[in-house]
């Protein structure tokens, strides 16, 4: 009994320490976004200060950070939709169809995720330059799809493999073809996994920096470029960058909350067989 209580206390302590480590930097960013420079730079940590919306006013007014948010939304949504539309059927095929060299194909798809982004960015730059797509949403969506697609294929493949084949076979017996079984049976049953995969794709695309830096143009720069732009050659605009970071976090935070139920189900989907 004592051992159990000690273990419980230790578990709570570990979780609390983890939460402090994770949440304190976020809290600092949120607080700084409401502070005047003098309060940010104060030599002692100031928790009592007169809050101001000046940083938000500057970020959204003078610096038009909302443009970065719109660009990120377009790119992240576009890349996620494209990855799901292409990746889910591929994952189903790899899970269910008797393809020759199935594991080889799956491994090849995973391998593309293992190539460092810096090795891909220059060839991609050349390709999009030749296609005259540099600086366009299309270039960014396509680039982000290259690293989102393997995630979709591998995650969804495992979800499909966890489904009892009997369900689809029953649909086939009832007259459905393979495509019908896929759309009407397999996809709805893996919806939590699909939601979790989609959220991960959105997150990866939303936070991606390197491709966005190299391939974007003046009208398509995404949120990470916008936030990094507060680091100047002489100084860092801590108030502005904090406000921008909060604005960058908010959509993802809201999305995470909204999809939390699916995320938990999706990420534990198939963890227990029975």
């Amino acid at each position, binding site marked *: 009994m004592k051992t159990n209580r000690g273990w419980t206390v230790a578990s709570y302590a570990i979780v609390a320490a983890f939460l402090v480590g994770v949440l304190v930097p976020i809290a600092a960013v949120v607080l700084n976004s409401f502070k005047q420079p003098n309060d940010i730079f104060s030599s002692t940590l100031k928790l009592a200060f007169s809050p101001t919306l000046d940083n938000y006013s500057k970020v959204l007014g003078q610096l038009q950070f909302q443009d970065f948010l719109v660009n990120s939304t377009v790119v992240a949504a576009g890349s996620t939709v494209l990855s799901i539309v292409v990746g889910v059927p591929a994952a189903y095929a790899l899970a269910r169809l008797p393809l020759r060299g199935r594991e080889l194909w799956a491994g090849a798809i995973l391998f593309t995720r293992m190539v460092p982004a810096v090795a891909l960015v220059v060839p991609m730059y050349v390709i999009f330059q030749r296609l005259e797509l540099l600086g366009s949403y299309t270039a960014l969506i396509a680039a982000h799809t290259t690293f989102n697609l393997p995630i979709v294929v591998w995650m969804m493949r495992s979800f499909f493999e966890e489904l009892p084949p009997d369900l689809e076979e029953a649909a086939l017996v009832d007259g459905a073809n393979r495509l019908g079984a896929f759309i009407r049976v397999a996809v709805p049953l893996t919806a939590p996994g699909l939601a979790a995969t989609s959220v991960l794709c959105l997150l990866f695309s939303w936070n991606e920096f390197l491709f966005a830096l190299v391939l974007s143009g003046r009208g398509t720069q995404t949120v990470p470029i916008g936030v990094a*732009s507060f680091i100047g050659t002489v*100084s860092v605009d801590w108030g502005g960058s904090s406000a921008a970071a909060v604005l960058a976090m908010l959509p993802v935070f809201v999305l995470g909350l909204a999809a939390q139920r699916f995320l938990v189900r999706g990420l534990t989907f198939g963890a227990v067989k029975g």
Partner: protein
Amino acid sequence: MAVYRRWSIAAVALLAATTLVACGSDDGGGSGSGDPNAAPATAGGPMGRFPGAKLVLSRWAGDPWTSGQKTAAGEWGTATGGTLDLDAVPYENLHDKQALTLTGAGGYDIIYVHPSWFGEFAKAGYLAPIDQYLADANRNPSGFSADSYLPNVLAQGKYDGKQYCLPDFVSTTVLAYRKDVFEANGIAEPKTLDDVAAAAAQLNGKDGLAGMSIPGKRGGAVADIMGSLITAQGNWWYDDQAKSTLDKAAAAKAVDFYVKVAKTAPSGVLNFHVDEAATAAAQGKAAMIISTTPSLQALEDPAKSTTAGKWGYLPLAFTAGKPAGELIYWNWCIAEKSTNKDAAYSFLQWYTNGPQQAKVAVAAATAGATKDFYTNAEVAAKLPFLSAMNDALTTSNPQPSLAAWPKAQDQIELAVQEAIEGKKTPDQAADAMGQAVADALG
């Protein structure tokens, strides 16, 4: 930074190799349409009319500069009929983005080039010469010519005998000291750097103050200060033929000073870039600061400083009455592949001129590179460091612009850091610097 630097080198090399053949037949850009000789629509306005011209300018992001330039771009567009868009990216990624773009199909008309990569870009043929524009009286306002610029600053935009760029962002390294603290402790205004080191030691720890705030992080500022310190001894890193001329005794003396004052700095000095050093001083944590003049803007901004109005400014001098400094600047250049070179020159001539520079000078704590900037008494009165900066720049060497310099700079800064940490004596650090400079310059 280091990671991106490494990938950028590999990336640019690879891109150059893969696109060389395909892009080899590029016939360069033209000058675009419009009338570059049209007189300004209003007094002090930009030259020329460029209806429909669409230009793109590449620069680092950061205010007040970016916002100020957006405003200027809008005014230029209204006056000339063209449009000028800013592609502002984080400073740490600027070189990589510019190099990739200029190596490829282009896309930039105007580029903001740091001295450390000016030589690289000029050598690679990315930049268009502007001698004919500067010499053409029809393209410039009455009385304006190359002579309108400070000659030693304009000369930094020259490569292989050709003028490529127009400068701005003139600055240097100076000393700022708390007049109230010196007075309260009965310390006279320092005349030499030995006085500075002595005052730093005396004031360190008094009323919670550090003696000196100074950049200690590798990132350029340490090398800038070292450049000023060896210039103050009549020495420089290299000569006109890019051969090392570093005097070991001068370098050791400079390092010795750096170490002495760094020992009186707030904790964490090795992680201080110019902004951290200035913030510490502005928040009343140090009695003195040596840093670049743009960073000292934080000292006098009441929104960022609890010590505004308490600072005095002096040039760096090892010998009383013989101040010196490193000339810090940026170059505005026109891309060789631009199809709007006339319009690009129109903007740059107008933007680097005194009245336009004055609009951002006070908020940014930078100075223009044209002579008329320094005749503006109203602006001068609002730049408290200007007198010290001008004194320092009477004896100055420009920030190095050799293609091979970034590597040497990093080693110089590493040697200073190791001396501060006690891993090297000033003599050993000087030896390491001499070796680094010789290796980098070949």
